[in-house]
């Protein structure tokens, strides 16, 4: 891939990561390319699964919807031939599981879970997660407050205090 194309792709990705709703024409203007070229790169990157989706960051706390998020540390015994992948799959296929990461450190998988209530999350852990073969133990941490999520600070930004006109 030539250097320009690579640079364009990265600039597009960085922009989309923060502004996924930008329309194609505007994106092309911002990137300084023709609309067709921007469209083409996006389509290619979607096909290559570099772009995996266009999501919305929601502060559910501000809605009436009941929602709790938990981070669950899971220690597992890796399985012969399949390593951690098989166990991870059994976990991530549950729709209430929001994210699953294999991580370094004193435990193996980090699972993010969204549920309606503490009780619901606890029930998932005790009834679904812990009984999975190979899961040794779990530690559940409930999120009390989200300060920053997906690179976005959840506290509203202050108004600009710059002067109106300066040299």
């Amino acid at each position, binding site marked *: 891939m030539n250097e320009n194309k690579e640079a364009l792709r990265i*600039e597009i990705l*960085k*922009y989309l990561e923060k502004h996924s709703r930008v329309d194609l024409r*505007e994106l092309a*203007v*911002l*990137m*300084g390319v023709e609309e067709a070229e921007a469209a083409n790169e996006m389509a290619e990157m979607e096909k290559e699964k570099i772009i995996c989706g266009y999501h919305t960051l929601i502060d559910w706390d501000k809605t009436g919807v009941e929602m709790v998020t938990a981070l669950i540390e899971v220690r597992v015994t890796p399985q012969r031939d399949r390593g951690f992948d098989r166990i991870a799959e059994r976990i991530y296929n549950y729709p209430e599981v929001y994210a699953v990461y294999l991580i370094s450190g004193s435990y193996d998988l980090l699972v993010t879970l969204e549920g309606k209530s503490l009780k619901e999350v606890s029930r998932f852990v005790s009834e679904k997660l812990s009984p999975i073969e190979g899961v040794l133990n779990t530690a559940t941490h409930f999120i009390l407050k989200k300060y920053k999520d997906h690179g976005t600070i959840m506290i509203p930004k202050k108004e*600009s205090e*710059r*002067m*109106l*006109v*300066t*040299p």
Partner: protein
Amino acid sequence: MRNPLSKKIIDIQPSGIRRFFDVANEMEDAISLGVGEPDFDTPWRIRDEGIFSLEKGRTFYTSNAGLKELRKEICKYLERKIGVTYDPLKETLVTVGGSEAIDVGLRCMLDPGDEVLIPQPSYVSYLPCTVMADGVPVVVPLQYENNFKLTVEDLEKYTTPKTKVLIMPFPNNPTGSIMTREDLEPVADFVKEHDLYVMSDEIYSELTYQTKHVSIASLPGMRERTLVINGFSKGFAMTGWRLGYCCGPEMIIEQMTKLHQFAIMCAPTTSQYAAVEGLKNCEDEVEEMRQSYNQRRRFLMHEFKRMGLECFEPFGAFYVFPSIKEFKMSSEEFATRLLREEKVAVVPGTAFGECGEGFLRISYAYSLDDLKEALGRVERFINRLREAQL
């Protein structure tokens, strides 16, 4: 009672923008495209370092020339960025913004009657600082046709045997114009031929698009006749920290340090500690801001084209400088009416010298959303003017 004031200070005209500022700053609900400072907060790691230095009780003076560690980092940075090596101990002075370096530099270089070539449109301080240093400012009007670059033809017209210093204001505020190596070479030859010194104000050096900034000091034979002025205000989004620096021949820096010692003592200590972190670890943050400015720049150029507003494409700083000559009114009148009728503040080109007449400075140190809102109003305004002209 005697007049307490010197004739020199009375004769200096207040900044051309002042009048306009007063009107603009009274408009409470106006939206602005008029500021000359970044919309980004200073990168957090720099702010955190400043806070940390306060927590540690580093509330003392530093050495006059600035923290040694900072001067070392400045020299490493300049070597990386412009390929010129300076001695941190003898050829580097940390100042209160680029502003102080401009002032002190001119005061150390000029004798009464020495002429200073000041290309305009350009930043507002070169001319009054020259006057206060007893120099004679000689304005060199830059041409729209040359994309507001400085050419040897321009210089030839204004150079006399008394000319001593040439100000090089690139990347330029307010035009956004830059000088590439090819543009600089003939100017450097001219400077050497006429035995001039250059004060190169490179405060916007981090903000160039498409090509990397080139310093005139990096051209053969120019290091010894150039004072490079730079700072943290623009590239590192640190305007309020008041921190800049200059590097150049020991002979000049030594005297500047002397004056700085008496007039200022030292640049703010907290800012100096914070800036070390900026130079060491903020390359990514600076790049991210640059990319963001570049996107807005492209957006503005695209919008002007769509509106049919004439504008050369600038590749530096965070300004565009469109022409409003088609509307047959002065820049100040245009800006004043735009403010009154659409509540958008822009700066008339004349604030940066008479040759800015017929142009506006529009800053893109604003979020894209702000730019869209403001440009919508500008478009409405110029459409009205065009209809009235029919």
